[in-house]
């Protein structure tokens, strides 16, 4: 039985800042002690819609940054998110004003595995999938790793790559479908060359499932480790609803429908059975 992130708590988090950055809102929340226990790759689950809302489910957001130690003693920790206003829930959240409060549960889920030895890491993000990668880059850098980053999106406005975030990366490549920034094409198109040039040893990724699947194919080809942060529809975020599953091969070799909110979002890409939406892969336990 896997279980929920043992550090998860439920709090009323106050909006400290909310700034539009390209297609996104960069939001900072005051979160009491929650920041101290957040690791790169963790996410939070937030109630959306307010008092009389018809939206009954929480929304999950990857933690972009969690600040705690650098703050004066006694002050609240901060958690930063990157929100893409998309449907009703994210649009509501992105329109919260400073001083408003939202109900937040976190930190949730698994975090990116950090190698014990310095390695050459390639971080790959799609759209707001870049959010958890900057905190990861900082951590890897502090452990002596070389960090290269490639971010892709449909167009320039959807690349989230703030200046301060770039501090920790040795190289930054941008791709856009329409060529409005960086290379024209998809991130996966850029990967082989980057892997070869940078002699990458591990890939960390976050973005749409199709992108992650394409990256896994490349990781397989180059025989690289691949830690992927997956994104399945989540109703609860805390492991009680079983909506967020993907087929995942366990250490015993058995494929089980596993909860991405508890066994993920960060999973070993080589263990995920990709492209399994709308069907249960053959051989899955209990199928």
């Amino acid at each position, binding site marked *: *039985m896997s*279980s*929920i992130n*043992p550090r*998860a708590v*439920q709090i009323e988090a106050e909006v400290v800042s909310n700034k539009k950055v390209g297609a996104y809102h960069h939001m900072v929340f005051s979160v009491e002690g929650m920041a101290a226990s957040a690791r790169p790759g963790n996410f939070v689950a937030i*109630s959306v819609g307010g008092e009389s809302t*018809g*939206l*009954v*489910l*929480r929304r999950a957001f990857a933690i972009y940054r969690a600040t705690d130690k650098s703050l004066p003693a006694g002050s609240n920790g901060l958690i930063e998110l990157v929100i893409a206003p998309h449907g009703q829930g994210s649009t509501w959240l992105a329109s919260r004003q400073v001083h408003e409060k939202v*109900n937040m*549960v976190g930190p949730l889920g698994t975090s990116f595995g950090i190698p014990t030895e310095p390695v050459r890491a390639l971080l790959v993000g799609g759209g707001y999938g870049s959010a958890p990668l900057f905190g990861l880059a900082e951590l890897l850098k502090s452990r002596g790793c070389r960090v290269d980053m490639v971010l892709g999106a449909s167009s320039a406005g959807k690349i989230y790559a703030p200046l301060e975030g770039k501090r920790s990366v040795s190289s930054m490549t941008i791709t856009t479908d329409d060529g409005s920034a960086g290379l024209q094409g998809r991130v996966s198109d850029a990967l082989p060359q980057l892997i070869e040039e940078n002699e990458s040893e591990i890939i960390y990724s976050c973005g749409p499932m199709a992108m992650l699947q394409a990256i896994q194919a490349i990781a397989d080809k180059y025989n690289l480790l691949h830690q992927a942060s997956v994104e*399945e*529809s989540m*109703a*609860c975020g*805390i*492991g*009680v*609803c*079983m*909506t967020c*599953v*993907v087929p995942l091969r366990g250490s015993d070799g058995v494929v*089980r*429908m596993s909860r991405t909110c*508890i066994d993920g979002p960060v999973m070993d890409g080589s263990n995920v059975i990709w492209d*399994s*939406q*709308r*069907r*249960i892969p053959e051989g*899955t*336990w*209990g*199928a």
Partner: protein
Amino acid sequence: MFDFSTKLSSSTLSNPILTASGCAGSGKELSQFFPLTELGAIVTKSIMLKPRSGRATPRMAETPSGMLNSIGLQGPGIDLFLENDIAWLQEAGVKIIVSIAGETVDDYAALARRVRSLPNVVGLEVNISCPNVENRGMVFSCQPDTARAAIENVRRNVGNDLPIIAKLSPDVTDISLIAREVVSAGADGLALINTVLGMVIDVNTMRPKLAQKTGGLSGPAIRPIAVRAIYQVHAALPKIPIIGMGGVASGKDALELVLAGASAISVGTATFGNPTAVIKVKEELKSLLVERGFEKFSDAVGFAHRAESN
């Protein structure tokens, strides 16, 4: 002192607030947010004989004031369930209502035998809102004869000290009819309501959003249907305890179902929106009852049925 205890046939619970089957994981996940011993009992996810992968994803869609799910009873099967989940709950000192689900009438009998006398297990919820593989996948509880057959089989395999609670689907022409049938077949209590069959179509892919097309609708959207079903069944069978559920997210919601005739309340979907929803419901319900002058929870059960002249 307000008496918050409630009786489900031969079992007494310290308070009437329960989780809803399939909405509380294995229990362990919620224990991080509150002590599970705060609950009247935990109702486990419906367990089947064998391990089951459940349905393909997408398995859920949010709907106005509700959600659709088609988990498809994913679970480890009865063996691992008893070994892991039940053992953990027993250790934690939590009262347990085990929910079972079968694909055939015999499955129900076999499952009943496995759980008939386990420490801390205070009730057996028989989820008969499942497709019957021997009858074109028709849901057991949608036909009086198959509903009866499933419950009779459980009854034959369980002694009188473990209450059998039949969980019914609201997707029927006359729920009182099914209720009478399962009670005469030996059910000690009823759980009302399971989810309502629904569908969402994704207007972008222009196909049903859920991989299995249809799913079960739950949440506040269905509360008026739950209140009606509980009211109808309590009117027809006033002595049969009912576990009420369907869209309860607050004490006010729970009170509605209690006044309609529920002796206990399961909180399902609300937990997804708020991990501590059950505790909120429990505390609010208690205050509302005290404010209204009730000294015992049981006095409020079915209170909306009293004669107009009162």
